[in-house]
């Protein structure tokens, strides 16, 4: 890469609307942060609904929470946290120009992400089998049976599960998008597109992945950890 001013204009990966690569990097970074802000508001609406209904129907929410498999949930949390680690290490690999390592870490991230989705699929299937999917075939009988001394209303229990599916479903959708993004990144990393001077897509893809991870970190205690072992 030449250093002369003319070459700056035609630098690899510099889009025509930007004056220099630094402006382009700053713009991409700000853009991703702003986008993540909108995602916070998006999930925020659901969290708001969740908080209100949990306040009103605590026993029902606790009963619903107890019906979730804590081991699968914990495993998924560990899987996602590890995947964020591989992402961060991947960004560092890109910064250091280590292409092979970068590709490996991106692939690992993909594997972990797909693993998360697989486990989530198992959990959803379990809910389906246990008749905890809201709708005509919903039944809270087993929840009432398990802790008969705590009185729960079947109707609001359905609200817990509605929110469970809505929240984990939208989260999973964002994970799938993340898997798509990282497939793209892996491919172009393998083709050698990312260098220490230009690896912005890896950075902002990483930001997105971290965000999806953080959403799960909130979802896990809110959905899985309500009063798991009630006194009495």
């Amino acid at each position, binding site marked *: 890469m030449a250093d002369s001013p003319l070459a700056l204009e035609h630098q690899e990966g510099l889009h025509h609307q930007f004056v220099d690569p630094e402006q382009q990097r700053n713009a991409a970074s700000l853009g991703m942060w702003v986008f993540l802000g909108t995602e916070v508001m998006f999930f925020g609406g659901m969290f708001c609904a969740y908080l209100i209904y949990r306040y*009103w129907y605590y*026993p029902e929410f606790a009963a619903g929470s107890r019906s979730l498999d804590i081991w699968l949930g914990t495993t998924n949390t560990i899987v996602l946290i590890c995947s964020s680690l591989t992402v961060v290490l991947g960004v560092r690999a890109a910064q250091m120009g280590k292409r092979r390592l970068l590709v490996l870490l991106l692939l690992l991230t993909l594997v972990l992400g797909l693993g998360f989705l697989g486990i989530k699929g198992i959990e959803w299937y379990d809910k389906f089998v246990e008749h905890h999917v809201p709708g005509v075939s919903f039944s809270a009988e087993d929840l009432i049976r398990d802790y008969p001394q705590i*009185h*729960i*209303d079947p*109707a609001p229990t359905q609200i817990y599960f509605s929110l469970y599916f809505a929240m984990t479903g939208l989260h999973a959708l964002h994970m799938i998008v993340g898997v798509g993004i990282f497939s793209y990144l892996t491919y172009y990393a393998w083709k050698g597109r990312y260098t220490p001077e230009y690896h912005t897509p890896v950075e902002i893809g990483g930001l997105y992945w971290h965000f999806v991870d953080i959403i799960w970190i909130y979802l896990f205690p809110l959905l899985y950890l309500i009063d798991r072992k009630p006194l009495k």
Partner: protein
Amino acid sequence: MFDNFPLWPVPASSGARNIDALFIFLVLLAGFVSIAIFTMIVAFALKYRHRPGHKAEQIEGSIALEVTWSVVPLAIFMVIFGWGAIIYFRERTPPREADAVYVVAKQWMWKLEHEQGQKEINELHVPVGRDIKLVMTSQDVIHSFYVPAFRIKQDVLPGRYTTAWFHATRPGVYHLFCAEYCGTTHSGMIGQVVVLEPAQYQAWLSGGITSGSLAANGETLFQQLGCPTCHRSEIQGRGPNLVGVFGSLVQLEDGRKVLADENYIRESILSPNAKIVSGFKPIMPTFQGLVSEDQLTALVAYIKSLSQPPSGAAGPARPAPGT
């Protein structure tokens, strides 16, 4: 009955005059400001129209003006707010001794029931000069009870009671509209409020066939559903004694104190575990699906009647309703 081309709605309630007063004030204020702005724009446009030899004067701004035209409007706004808030507070605080009329809205009609048992559809007969409180719920979607002549409007929700009240001051027949879009015949869900002189109202009351007062029907239902098994009045049962409950502050087991209004009674019947009274166990079964809206109305009326003082005696102390 109605003019062909009215420009002002008849004021027929005690609240209507207050609302009209604020409205007229706002019309004058808005009119004044609009005319002032219009006039200034037209005046500036003409006086400062471009012509040879006339140059614009570059004026940056004026902090004094900015502050003035921020603070003065704000002050005026606060006056309007205060005035409107006072009206609203009175509007939403039914007097304690108001007569209750129970309203059930459904697509696409109004069902009204007087305490004495008279049922009406799309029509409400009331005597002039008395406080009337409406206790309303919907069987399906959100509706809204609107009487322009009284200047009252209140959304009617499924799953809970909302209330409104008025004090009619003029005999006459007034429009009743549904004001919250509710489907196909939303604009057909209309009726009338008939305000009668007291004597005529008495005549109307005794003229109709009733199936007993609401409270009496409620008492019958109370017995039929087995409620006295736990809710005993002479001795302490497994459930709280309901005499005097309505209108009082109830201590719950989680520490909260709630007002036992119509919604509290209704919730206690349909979702008994939502609020457990301190000292009692959550053993009351739910009656969701076992009682209709009309039956709920009767039960609420009955339980309310347990708080009414027998003639001559003072009633139990209770806070102002509507708070």
